[in-house]
């Protein structure tokens, strides 16, 4: 399980355990699985999706950065459009 947090300056959009997460990187979409190496990536506009116990969820984000470290993912988005 990976711990995922999605925050914007206004609110916390999601926090919880996920098994995988896919992000719209600036140069194309990529997926993060368990034990991914430490990574910082700039994001473009696009779909963020992740799988929790309840199933798959997704948001559209605009601009931001994602940090992956020790099975913890923090996504800082400037804007999240549901």
């Amino acid at each position, binding site marked *: 399980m990976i711990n995922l947090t999605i*925050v914007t*300056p206004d609110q916390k959009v999601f926090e919880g355990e996920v098994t995988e997460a896919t992000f719209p990187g*600036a140069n194309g979409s990529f997926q993060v699985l368990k034990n991914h190496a*430490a990574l*910082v*990536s*700039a994001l473009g506009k696009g779909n963020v999706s992740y799988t929790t116990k309840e199933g798959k969820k997704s948001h559209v984000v605009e601009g931001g950065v994602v*940090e992956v470290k020790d099975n913890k993912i923090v996504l800082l988005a*400037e*804007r999240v459009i549901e």
Partner: protein
Amino acid sequence: MANLKEVKQRINSVASTQQITRAMKMVAAAKLRRAQERILKMRPYSQKLTAILDEVVSSMGGELEIAYAEKRPVQKVLIVAMTSDKGLCGAFNSNILKTTSGLVSNEYKGKDVTVLPLGKKAFEFFTRRDFRINGDFFEIFKDVSYEEVRKIASFAMEGFIKREFDEVVLVYNHFRNVATQDITVEQFLPMGSLNTSGTEAKPTDYILEPSKEYVVQDLVPTALKTQFYKAVLESNASEHGARMTSMDKATENAAELLKELKLMYNRTRQAAITSEILEIVAGANALEGN
């Protein structure tokens, strides 16, 4: 001695004023709590952002050209003055207006200054006087959101890049606590150097996508917008804090005034009764004398 009816009227009017100020204090307290919550909500975002930026910058040894940090001889200045939309909050607004006018006529004398007022009070003040203003954004305090603030920050940043401004300064009230606000004049652009906060911890060996340069160039504007947003939130919280304090004082003053007026009312009433009794007694005596 004042007339009984007049005093009674004054008591009523002071009492109803007190009711209003008390209600305003309650409203300001509730709004203040919400404004503080907003600041708390933003904190995880800004802390994480600073942390990532720090790590990335420290891992690349500082050699980097950032357009937003370019220092030029200052000719054109943009001053962002943050006030509130409404009054009745003590010296909150007048401090900002005074400081801004001071900046224009002293520090930036002879320079080409544009004022960008945020909040209706600043807009009205600077429109009435001989300032060059940009009044596109003054209504943000109706509903503070990152969306709106981002537009203003982007406007200032684009102006800086296009060389419309050589320096951008924020003037706002920093929220120290409910009773105290500090007037803050903060340089927004050119931004200060990206110095690492000197943490000795081993930097994590991050994979940076798509490239180090890209990540930094992408993060810097975000960090600036966050800084701007923070200033707006601080100002917003300060406004409600200032209003709460001044309304609390007003309520107290009204209570004191009421006490004095009631004393006067009772004295007047007593005097009226005494003179009435005197008249009756004198009348009775006169009758008996017959």
